[in-house]
């Protein structure tokens, strides 16, 4: 369906893609993940001819899109694209947004196009908004319309460029649900995303992009649970870890709490557990700081998929000694009650405290 051979693209001196080759079969749902600035979006733009690669070949369903004789508009009409910023036609109603291309390009009659659009609107659950203007809809609704608009051309391939990145967290779910609906229909999909859980669940294949190309390619299980290459491991690892550095007693604790709560949200940890995690972190940190046991703390929270626990690690300076050996502090009692295991070690780098917290999820 899509065959990319030795694709390279650079902007001035900045090389974005170098010698990328890829073969995607019909019906595959490919998630493209990776850090920002590694050419994920540029890659998608090359695939539908919005950017011309410096060298290399791209075949879409057998057509070489870099060839000047290929009718790029024809190729594009078989290939939908959904953008981060929706880009609905703001002068047209929702219905007109969806029917415009089928009417003008596929030559459907107004009635045929409308019937089709109604079906698509049903699928994205926005039938009642058919006559609304795009500006009247929320971001999530606009994005679902954008998906329906792309699908109205009966594309064989749909490219999604970070479809949920511009959305408020409350609207991400509805858009992902809409994408999922179409993923089941056998359309070939390429999705650039930062929603790892979604990628794992929907994709049949995951590409990790880094170092100007496809760094690692595998099934979701391979990439997320058992990455082989160092950068993939680091990237996947970082996703599940929250790091925070505390340099003084007067640190911005509200920022830390917010980070913890967002971290918990990402792994679907219940608000109650999330709250207790904040509380435990707070008790541990302030116990150390207030008793002058530490002046700098490197804190990390690591989520483990397997048993649903979160490990709170504190690396700090100050005098050696397990704080849990000391007298009974109310905060420490609480911490002990909430944790399943507490481990203290000391070496030349300082003190290390590891606390396993139960999330009660699994």
């Amino acid at each position, binding site marked *: 369906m899509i065959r990319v051979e030795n694709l390279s693209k650079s902007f001035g001196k900045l090389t974005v893609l170098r010698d990328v080759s890829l073969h995607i079969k019909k019906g595959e749902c490919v998630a493209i993940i990776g850090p920002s600035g590694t050419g994920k979006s540029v890659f998608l733009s090359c695939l*539908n001819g*919005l950017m011309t690669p410096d060298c290399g070949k791209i075949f879409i369903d057998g057509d070489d899109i870099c060839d000047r004789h290929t009718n790029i*508009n*024809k190729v*594009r*009409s*078989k*290939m*939908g*694209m959904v*953008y981060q*910023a929706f*880009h*609905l*036609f*703001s*002068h047209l109603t929702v219905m007109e947004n969806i029917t*415009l*291309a089928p009417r*003008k*390009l596929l030559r459907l009659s107004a009635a045929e196009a409308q019937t089709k659009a109604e079906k698509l609107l049903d699928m994205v659950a926005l039938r009642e908004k058919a006559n609304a*203007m795009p*500006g009247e809809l929320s971001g999530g609704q606009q994005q679902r319309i*954008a998906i329906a*608009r*792309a699908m109205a*051309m009966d594309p064989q391939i749909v490219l999604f460029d970070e479809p949920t990145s511009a959305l408020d967290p409350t609207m991400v779910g509805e858009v992902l649900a809409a994408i999922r609906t179409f993923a089941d229909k056998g359309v070939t999909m390429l999705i650039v995303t930062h929603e790892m859980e979604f990628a794992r669940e929907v994709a049949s294949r995951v590409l990790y992009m880094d170092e100007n190309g496809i760094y690692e390619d595998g099934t979701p299980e391979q990439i997320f649970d058992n990455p082989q290459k160092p950068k993939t491991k680091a990237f996947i690892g970082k996703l599940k870890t929250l790091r925070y550095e505390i340099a003084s007693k007067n640190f911005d604790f509200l920022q830390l709490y917010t980070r913890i709560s967002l971290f918990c949200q990402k792994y679907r940890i219940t608000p109650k557990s999330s709250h207790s995690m904040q509380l435990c972190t707070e008790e541990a940190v302030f116990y150390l700081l207030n008793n002058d046991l530490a002046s700098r703390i490197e804190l990390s929270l690591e989520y483990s998929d397997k048993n649903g626990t979160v490990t709170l690690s504190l690396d700090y300076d100050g005098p050696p000694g397990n704080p849990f050996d000391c007298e009974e502090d109310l905060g420490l009692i609480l911490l002990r009650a909430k944790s399943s295991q507490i481990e203290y070690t000391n070496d030349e780098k300082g003190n290390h405290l590891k606390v396993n917290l139960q999330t009660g999820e699994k």
Partner: protein
Amino acid sequence: MDGFIAFITADTLKVIWSGLKVTLLITAAGLLLGTLLAALLCAASRSKIIVLRVAEKAFSVVVRGTPVLMLLLLLFYVVFARTGMSAIMVAIIGFGLNTAAHVSEIMKSALMAVDAGQVKAARTLGFSAWQAFWYVTFPQAVAFALPMYRNATINLLQWTSVVGYVTISDLTRVINQLGARSAKPFYSLFLGIVIYLFVGYMIHLIFKLTERKGGRVR
């Protein structure tokens, strides 16, 4: 009041009507010519050819920076002096050029106001560059431009009042002459102002109707 009614005779109205016709003709023809030229200028400003872009910029700066009366005098006494072209024709060309410079700026800003992402979205649906322009950029640009274009039109109507300098008997000139001849300048000027107001308001209304029809962006 009686004096005013006595002032309005059939002859006066006939004279005023002949002046008004000239004013309307110059306004309408100037607007038409100006809009067509503006579209060309706008295209030139977005062209890949540097010479065209520079020429457009120079034209726009010079014409917008010059009082329209100066342009008119230049055209009438210098450029077209020996061609025997009618004064009204010269005025239409003069106001056409002036309007073109202003309207092309309106068009440029309206085109810029259209979200480039929507054009990209249209292209990825399979529309050609022209189709994307026609179905997406153009209708939105028109909706953005209409309010400014309406003001430009009303301004044009008022600026045409200087054509008396190049021997044209437009509304302003006949009003002035009526005032002088009848020694009732207040009556004639009052009538003149009312007519300008009325025509301006009609233009306003026509545009408002179109804007409501086409301007449902956002």
